[in-house]
């Protein structure tokens, strides 16, 4: 079971959390102006990297707050967790989408 450091509560076991998939996918400000291709990309296409991955997690059975995390999908090691709206400090943004 993973041990995940909630930025608000500290380290807690994985069963307290829900993973929300890839992080840093901003909802378009005005979706109606987005063409079909870009919209389907936004809705359905996600990265599945072997290595460091930026993910959304929610401490659903704790403080209830969403946050972001950098996780190495090979080792399952969490490199960093950081609040919503923040950027990771330890990993170049270029490896995650948008």
């Amino acid at each position, binding site marked *: *079971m*993973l*041990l995940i450091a909630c930025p608000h509560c500290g380290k807690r*076991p*994985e069963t307290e959390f*829900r993973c*929300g998939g890839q992080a840093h996918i901003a*909802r378009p400000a*005005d*979706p*109606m102006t*987005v063409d*079909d291709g870009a*919209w*389907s990309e936004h*809705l359905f296409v996600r990265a599945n990297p072997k290595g460091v991955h930026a993910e*959304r997690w*929610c401490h*659903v059975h704790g403080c*209830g*707050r*969403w946050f972001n995390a950098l996780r190495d999908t090979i*080792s*399952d090691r969490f490199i960093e967790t950081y609040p*919503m*709206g923040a950027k990771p400090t330890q990993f170049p943004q270029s490896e995650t989408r948008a």
Partner: protein
Amino acid sequence: MAQPFRLSRGGRIDRTRPIVFAFNGKPVHGFAGDTVASALLANGIHLVGRSFKYHRPRGILSHGPDEPSALLSVDRGPGRIDPNNRASVVEARSGLRTTSQNHWPSLEFDVGAVNDLLSPVFVAGFYYKTFMWPRKFWDKVYEPFIRAAAGLGKAPTVADPDRYANRHAHCDVLVVGAGPAGLAAALAAARTGKRVILADEGAEPGGSLLHDTTSQIDGRPAADWLAETLAELDARENVILLPRTTAFGYYNHNHVAMTERVTDHLTSAAGQAPRERLWQVRAEQVVLAGGAHERPLVFADNDRPGILLAESVRVFLNRYGVAPGRRLVFATCGASAYQAALDARAAGLDVTLVDLRLEADCGPELAQLRSAGAEVLTGHTVIGSKGRKRVTGLVVAPVGSDGRCGGRRLLACDCVGMSGGWTPAVHLFSQSRGKLRYDDAIDAFVPNISAQAERSAGAARGTYDLAACVNEGFSAGAAAAGSDERQEVRATPTLTGFQPVRIMPTDANPTKVRAFVDYQNDVTAKDIKLAVREGFQSIEHVKRYTTTGMATDQGKTSNMNALGIVAGQLDKALPAVGTTTFRPPYTPVTFGALVGPARHALFDPIRTTPIHEWAEAHGALFENVALWRRAWYFPKAGEDLHAAVARECKAVREGVGIFDASTLGKIEIVGRDAAEFMNRLYINPWTKLAPGRCRYGLMLKEDGYILDDGVVARVSDECFHVTTTTGGAARVLAHMEDYLQTEWPELEVFLTSTTEQWAVIALQGPKARDVIAPLVDGIDLSPEAFPHMAMRSGTICGVPTRLFRVSFTGELGFEINVPSDHARAVWEAVFAAGRAHGITPYGTETMHVLRAEKGYIIVGQETDGTVTPDDVGMAGMIPKAKGDFVGKRSLARPDVVASGRKQLVGLMTDDPKLVLDEGAQIVADTGQPIPMRMLGHVTSSYWSANCGRSIALALVEGGRERAGGHLHVTTPDGFTRVTVCEPVFFDTKGERINA
């Protein structure tokens, strides 16, 4: 009390506390401190079971958790029968009833032993090769035969009466294994003040020190060092010492699962103590000191009872004071067996040792043993064994450097101790996803690259010398605690080193020799060679094809021998073959320990409403909806489901019904931006909804498909009372929180689940107003003042209420929201007031029928995650001018705007009495070839007492355009014809609701 093989002195057993237990119905005497295995051997009992496949007589091979053969069913009293226990680890105590397994009619005479004579038939892959054809034989002949033959031991037939506990623990350093290395590691870590847990699977911590009667540490007996170390650990408050505790699983982020056997060894369980306790430990650092397993030698008939591992012979002699025989032959390819032979000599037993190594390759152990008066035959192989239910002799022969065997010689004996070298127990290290490295010097895989915060020490990483184990353990423990403290003890040198041998050289015809590699699954060297000849090259494939290493012992004694044979056949180096994957559990774990307290009502907790007990008392039957238990229908005497539901349905439409809607999800949405938040989450407009008014809200996912629905009341400008479906409440709140926190953090809105706070009493039917009128204060109930889709605050029976005028039946209706604690009292008052009006309690089934008569959808029944608002005829709810909301953009996706989508329609069968099956498929033309073109399916279908006929809702391709047309629906008896209609069957003009 005979115990003819008990030595007159020695051992850690308590000779003042005799015990007696049963083996196959006969009493077996022993002492406290015995295992079942040591007590059996003390009584000269070696034959303890029959093997899995060939039903060969089998005995006790080992003294520890690696035992593959001596598997007993242990009966600890009524309901407490547990199969497949290793005799070597079950602590003997009075009152146990043990029985051998896998034989009929008896252990001594087993008809199944005929399989042994048929062994040429049962080769590797027998099942795959044999049970291929004819196809029709599978159900009636092959499968019953395989099922009868498969499995070892009998599963218990009654529920487990024991209690199991579950405990979470955190520590700085977890040490697994309390042998010399683990004890030293725990000591070093404990001295830094860090929190330490030391777990050992044995009844007594100490590992090899418990049977090492000759070694000295720093000039004093090793047992003294053990006692002092344990005393210091015991005295420290920062140390938790857990005997009888097996670390069986090593999971992510240093999460280690362990089972502690709390009461099995006790004659009377102490008070309320659980039988076992599951420990889930989260450790900052882990030290793995689980020791090593000895390898058997692979020679013909190496599985006879009386043939043990050499170190196990030593354990039985020194720890339990038991001689496994009187004339012992040790067979080895290395030095450690000499120590066992020396100890046997010291116990006064007759000892001969056969060593495959040449004289020149042996160390000082050779001279030591010879001077102790034992015959040692170096450069000799073992050809085979004699005897049947007990070994009577070992056939040996000199073997030259060319592998040729010289003249055979029979060594008469009643016990053999064999040693094929050692295998470090790297199971937990591998489970932690650490990478192994093959160490040629000790012919073993050892830990190499760690994946987690752990380190191995002692025999678990291939260090076999006692002093080295202690010093390495100490350093590992210190390092785990963040210290670089070291300790250098001196100890008697340990006899170590061996020349690996895969199969003992033999002069016999190799196609006839049956030399066992995996004792538990009856896999011979011949089987493994055959698998390689048949083209299996990957060790993972060989394993599955031959089943070697796949038994409950996971090949602890057999894996390295099997690997070596495969490597030899493939002419590859051993590391090039690699190892199979080590998986949890390290040793078998009881289901009880894993399940813990999560049984019966706690297995899958249910939620009940404040009205639940009233419904029970009034004869309700219940159905499960999500975690809730809801009243399904209230049958009167002699009524079945259909009769009761028909009566309830008519009662609501003709008088008044009362329904418990408390399970509805409720969310209070409060804040300056509450209306804006609602606008963004629902397809409906909210800005202009006046306080005190309600609106049916429909919520989409971003992909445009319906997520949930429910009535929403505006309580004030900045407060909405939102309801959701029963099953969707948590999902909807999570969906709202997600958008609020991650997309629109600028909105000032607060979301609170109020599902449990508000109970909901639905009162539906033309007489509903009359029933509640005398009970309500502060609310004008007249239709003009309180129209349909309004909400008022006031009191009912003196209890504060949010009274909704809403309807899920199409009748005049109220949903009385009251604080849950008052709900039962209000319910009973309303029910009492309703008696004069013929009030009828109804359940979820009637609720379903009534809403279907009106064509009201249920999310999850009429929708399945691919249904849009337009598909269910609700696109009109979206104002043309409405701005963005979740899912809006997707409603313009090409496949959503395409024609031919499935749409909600009503279906009426030609035969009004025929009720369609929900889920039944719909086609246009029954004459078309199979596979037919499916147009959709029935989503809801009921008998409607109010309509006097069956009704159904369905999703049908282009459904609205088919109104008035005919389609065909599958039934168990073939197709039936239906007419497509509007999805509303009762009061089509919707007048009753405004009464």
